[in-house]
């Protein structure tokens, strides 16, 4: 069960995020919000190979949710329930998609984007090569942070310093990405990318029964709040 996720096609994984996004608009009350989040969490427990990773994503989207809760509470007449629902809605909107993105193999995604969705081949290939670079980003971030620490310019515990530091790190990462991108484009062009016409794909984009079942499950999860919305 727990490795199925690596075998369904990437469009199915993306659809999980898309359906949750549509569904999130129908999250209007606390019980519905709780049920929806609960079902997504259950699905995560059943289908994902690890629980740490979805939990990390939850923490990230939770951070966004908390800021929404707080501002809704402040501005919305300090109504706790309205604020909580607004927060949970953000979770429904962002969490499933953010988890799924982590399991997408950029190469397979480009197969489907080009062959099922018929997007332009060159754009798709360039995009997928760029996504591939993202998997190295966490590592790059670590190395950048390490060098900064060794050079005496990492921040202390002061929050202002911390924020400034993340800003300069993000900038360094961007520069690094751009430099990498220019060498990457030299390397890609040297493999026939510059004058690729009628590009082909090494693997077909097929839809198995499992993919269809996955798609149905994604749609069903996204439909939960919508059904509740109309039923109540």
């Amino acid at each position, binding site marked *: 069960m727990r490795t199925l996720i690596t075998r369904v096609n990437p469009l199915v994984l993306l659809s999980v995020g898309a359906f949750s996004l549509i569904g999130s608009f129908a999250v209007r009350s606390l019980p519905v919000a709780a049920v929806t989040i609960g079902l997504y969490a259950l699905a995560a427990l059943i289908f994902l190979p690890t629980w740490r990773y979805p939990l990390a994503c939850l923490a990230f989207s939770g951070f966004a949710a908390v800021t929404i809760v707080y501002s809704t509470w402040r501005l919305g007449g300090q109504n706790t329930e309205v604020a909580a629902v607004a927060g949970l809605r953000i979770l429904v909107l962002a969490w499933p998609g953010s988890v799924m993105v982590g399991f997408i193999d950029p190469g397979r995604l480009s197969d489907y984007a080009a062959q099922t969705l018929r997007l332009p081949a060159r754009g798709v290939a360039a995009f997928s090569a760029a996504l*591939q670079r993202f998997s190295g980003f966490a590592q790059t971030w670590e190395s950048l942070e390490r060098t900064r620490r060794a*050079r005496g310019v990492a921040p202390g515990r002061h929050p202002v310093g911390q924020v400034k530091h993340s800003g300069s790190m993000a900038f360094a990462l961007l520069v690094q990405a751009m430099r990498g991108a220019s060498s990457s484009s*030299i390397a890609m062009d040297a493999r026939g990318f510059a004058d690729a016409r009628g*590009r082909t794909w090494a693997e077909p984009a097929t839809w198995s029964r499992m993919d269809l079942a996955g798609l149905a499950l994604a749609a069903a999860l996204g439909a939960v709040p919508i059904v509740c919305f109309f039923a109540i």
Partner: protein
Amino acid sequence: MRSGAISFRGFTWRPVGRKNPTIAGLDLHIEPGERVLLVGPSGSGKSTILHAAAGALGTTISGEATGDVSVDGRLGLVLQNPADAIVAERIGRDVAFGPENLGLPRDEIWRRVDAALAAVRLDYPRDHLTSALSGGEQQRLVLAGVLATEPDVVLLDEPTSMLDAVAAERARDAVLAAVGDRTLVVVEHRFEPWLDHVDRVVALDPGGVVGFDGSVAEFLASGGRPRLWMPGAPPPTPIEIPAEFVSPAVVPEAVDASDVVLTTRMIRGTRRHRALSGFTARLAPGTTTAITGPSGAGKSTALLAMTGLVRVSGGTVTPDRTRMRSRELAREVGWVPQNPELGFLTTSVREEVERTASVLGVEVEADELLALVGLERFAPSHPYRLSGGEQRRLAMISALAHRPGFVALDEPTVGQDRDTWAVVTGWYTAAARAGAVVALATHDPDAPRDVEIAVGEAVTAT
């Protein structure tokens, strides 16, 4: 007629931000099927020439190009940093990228992928992860990706510089077997092992002019050109760096590592990778310790663990600097990373050298330091606009200008010609003589050392 010729006619290149051209009036003609070794001191323009042949100058890299470059046939290029050339998550798909661009049918794509992987002797299944390859394996993967397009010309920029002798020989054999009778241009500093396999040597002099062009026999008979690693010559004597530039500004403290284990997590926590196991060492003040071992054995990790820049998963390192504030750590430890590009903090070479020292309130003579490592001309340049070897030297003095007590260098001698090698080795030997604790992770057998510690066999995923 066979394709695969390369020719430069009056080619001149002036990159953005430089007053003078870095390649001036180059005339070079390479015949189809010729195997050429391109050598020259650091910064002489070797990488630039390969970029020019690949058509990247004036397009992807900005500057002003005049004269003619032409390449007859399909070209394949392996850059100095292989990680930049990987486009897919699995090795099979990565190699397939070129054939896909050529619009080949599916079974032909996979036939070529398998043939290319076999040619470079990378025997993993097609769905092996590219992120799980060591530096040397990545280099072979990139070569396979290039071969799968069946190029007429293969250009390689320092393909074995990061490898130990055994791994380098394996990579070289793979290259030679795979290249067959195509045109080959290979750039290398430690070029001796290539001499038996090439037809012609082109040596650049500083400023991008051809100083020698002829057969291998003529090249050897001519005695070569200054600064090159000619076969049989003993390694140069490290130059004397005055103690004032290196003698520790803090009291050096011995470092003890005992039974250190380090594991890292890969791919969203689903796999663990043991980067180091059971590493024990004692680094004493006034001593240079070399950490050696085969490619992928964990040399860099061992070095890092001792600096306190990573937390260990088992064992102990004393003193434990992992909780120290950045400034205090920097005052005591100078770490020179393997990939210098990741270390640059500023937008000019001079500021880069002054950065850490000014944070710590230590006075440095940036211009004198730059002159010592031969970078004085580049003081106002952007650190990214330097050649590979120049960047490494800059990273070294930027990390050490404030005279820390513990000097930790990761592969400091890679990519240097004889003169710059003598500067780099001179720097750390002088620091040790002045009482600093010095450790280097290295595969260079000539790099001077007092003590050697070998880290275990290449460790694999657990």
